[in-house]
């Protein structure tokens, strides 16, 4: 049959158009398939989709996917589709062949078509992405050499490369998930509260301890603006820190008194820092919340412990001093003082008497302390004259201190007060003894009593060494003693004032102190006239 040139052209065009249409169809198919594979995020689904598509393209008996380990040393069978052919425990070809195919980087039939014994055709499809291979597929099909052509090859190679990309994406995705889980485990296990917000103030992450420390009851905080769940001081502080850090780039830790639950008040330390992306652009702010009450409490207990050991050593010293005086004077009386030397005898006996009083005071302070500690401290209320108590206490002191004058000033017509006489006496003994103890020779101790607003006030002032300003708030603490090693070493157990305070408090009274270092101190006790 002869054809005209026109017919030739027409045939050529028809063929070209048909082939172009085929190509377009192929491209569309490729795109569809690629989308199908890439849209999967789970390894199982990716491999499932991949095999499903391969099955449509070429009917196989079995397809087995081997994926390389992360370190690319070795691989393992990860997926298998279709019945394994008889006589085939494993479809895995020789390692040398696999390596050779992987080097070729494209679909390769490894069955010799000339082999008359061949029952199947085995081919290897490297699963290879733009960067590296992730594995390979071993495909076993019926012995029909005719179906193998180049077009099938490019489809398979294309599908394999898309699968490789999908697997790599999936690996990255899993890694990100893992590191997210890792980070959130870390965040949750930190005892501090950690909250990050974006530039608008919406929470981007928050750990459980933040909600625990701050007592936030709102659920699902991520995405919410912090002002929705932080109120009062806390909101104000965060507002300030937020603008300060954005403004200056840093902010000091601030402390806020916060009451997360009813009747619970804690001190929260808040530190803030900037969050930036890899281009160092600020994308938000991170807040760290610390419950400072716990560390303050530990510091307080440690200090108390130290004070207790110091107390034991002080008490031992305090007891030994009067004891050793009593011991040596009585020893001298027994062995050295002549019976007829009455003056010396009397002098020594009076020293012993005084030291016995001192011991008695220390012992009674210790007993008071143990009663206070065990909660057995009870008051015996009676109508008593404060003036008389002051007088009797002074008479005890009068003979003792050398060169210290005691002045008294009582207001006229002082009413009686309801109080425990013995305890009030103890208060005065302690205060006056302190004034004398801390006064240099030649000093003056003045005691005055006056009435004001339903109270009687009794002031004991001295011209002694005074109390440093920063120590004044501590002097009523149990075991506390102002460290005076570089000025005076004055003995004491550090119990007197804490007992005084306890006695005054249990009378619903008040005690105040005013002191100038080097000039003297004034202690004023206010006692209510009637028991309330």
């Amino acid at each position, binding site marked *: 049959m002869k054809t005209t040139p026109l017919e030739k052209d027409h045939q050529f065009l028809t063929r070209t158009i048909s082939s172009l249409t085929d190509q377009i169809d192929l491209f569309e198919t490729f795109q569809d398939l690629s989308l199908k594979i890439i849209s999967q995020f789970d390894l199982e689904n990716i491999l499932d989709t991949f095999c499903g598509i391969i099955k449509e393209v070429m009917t196989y008996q079995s397809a087995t996917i081997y994926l390389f380990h992360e370190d690319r040393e070795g691989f393992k069978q990860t997926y298998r589709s279709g019945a394994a052919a008889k006589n085939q425990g494993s479809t895995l070809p020789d390692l040398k062949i696999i390596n050779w195919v992987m080097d070729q980087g494209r679909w390769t039939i490894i069955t010799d078509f000339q082999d008359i014994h061949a029952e199947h055709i085995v081919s290897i499809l490297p699963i290879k992405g733009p960067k590296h291979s992730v594995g390979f597929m071993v495909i076993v099909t019926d012995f029909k050499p005719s179906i193998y052509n180049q077009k099938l090859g490019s489809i398979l190679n294309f599908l394999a490369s898309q699968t490789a990309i999908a697997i790599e994406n999936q690996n990255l995705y899993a890694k990100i998930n893992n590191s997210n889980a890792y980070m959130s485990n870390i965040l949750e296990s930190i005892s501090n509260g950690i909250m990050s917000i974006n530039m608008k103030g919406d929470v981007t992450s928050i750990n459980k301890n933040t909600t625990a420390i701050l007592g936030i009851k709102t659920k699902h905080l991520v995405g919410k603006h912090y002002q929705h769940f932080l109120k009062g001081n806390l909101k104000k502080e965060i507002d300030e820190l937020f603008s300060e850090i954005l403004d200056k780039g840093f902010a000091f830790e601030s402390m806020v008194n916060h009451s997360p639950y009813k009747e619970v008040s804690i001190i929260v330390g808040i530190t803030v820092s900037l969050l930036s992306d890899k281009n160092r652009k600020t994308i938000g702010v991170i807040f760290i919340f610390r419950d400072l009450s716990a560390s303050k409490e530990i510091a307080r207990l440690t200090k108390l412990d130290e004070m207790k050991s110091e107390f034991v050593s002080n008490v*031992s010293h305090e007891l030994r001093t009067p004891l050793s005086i009593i011991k*040596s004077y009585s020893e001298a009386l027994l062995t*050295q003082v002549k019976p007829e030397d009455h003056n*010396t005898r009397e002098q020594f006996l009076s020293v012993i008497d005084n030291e016995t009083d001192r011991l008695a005071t220390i012992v009674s302070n210790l007993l008071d302390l143990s009663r206070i500690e065990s909660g057995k401290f009870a008051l015996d209320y009676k109508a008593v004259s404060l003036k008389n108590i002051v007088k009797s206490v002074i008479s005890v002191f009068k003979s003792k201190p*050398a060169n210290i004058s005691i002045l008294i000033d009582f207001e006229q017509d002082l009413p009686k007060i309801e109080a425990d006489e013995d305890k009030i006496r103890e208060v005065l003994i302690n205060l006056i003894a302190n004034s004398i103890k801390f006064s240099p020779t030649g000093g003056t101790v003045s005691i005055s009593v006056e009435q004001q607003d339903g109270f009687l006030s009794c002031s004991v002032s001295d011209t002694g060494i005074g109390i440093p300003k920063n120590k004044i708030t501590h002097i009523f603490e149990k075991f506390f003693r102002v460290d005076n090693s570089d000025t005076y*070493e004055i003995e004491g157990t550090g119990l007197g004032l804490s007992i005084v305070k306890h006695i005054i408090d249990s009378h619903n009274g008040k005690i105040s102190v005013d002191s100038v270092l080097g000039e003297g101190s004034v202690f004023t006790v206010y006692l209510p006239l009637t028991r309330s």
Partner: protein
Amino acid sequence: MDYKKTILIIDDMKQIRDILWFSLKQEGYKPILAENGQKGLDYLFDKDNRVDLVILDVMMPKMNGYEVLEEIRTSNIPESNIPVIMLTAKAQKDDVIKGLARGADDYILKPYKFADVLAKIQKFIG
């Protein structure tokens, strides 16, 4: 024998100074009293005074016994090696060790028996 061995007593507590003065005098010594470390050192460092032994209290205002001891031991007076007995109510071992380490010859814990004090004095100066 006319000369009486002289013992310098440095203690801030009057009652202790007084009773030691009384008891040592009874035993034939010549006690000298100092109410603080500085006064004690002043007496000791005066060339005209002769001292045979020092009884030194640890807990004293301004200058404690350890500091007084150090002054004595680092001085260049003939008495820098004088026997020093520390007198302390601090029963802790650390304090005793601290005293001995700084060159004290012996120590007496309060409350003491005078017989012990005497024995320790006699050990050094007879």
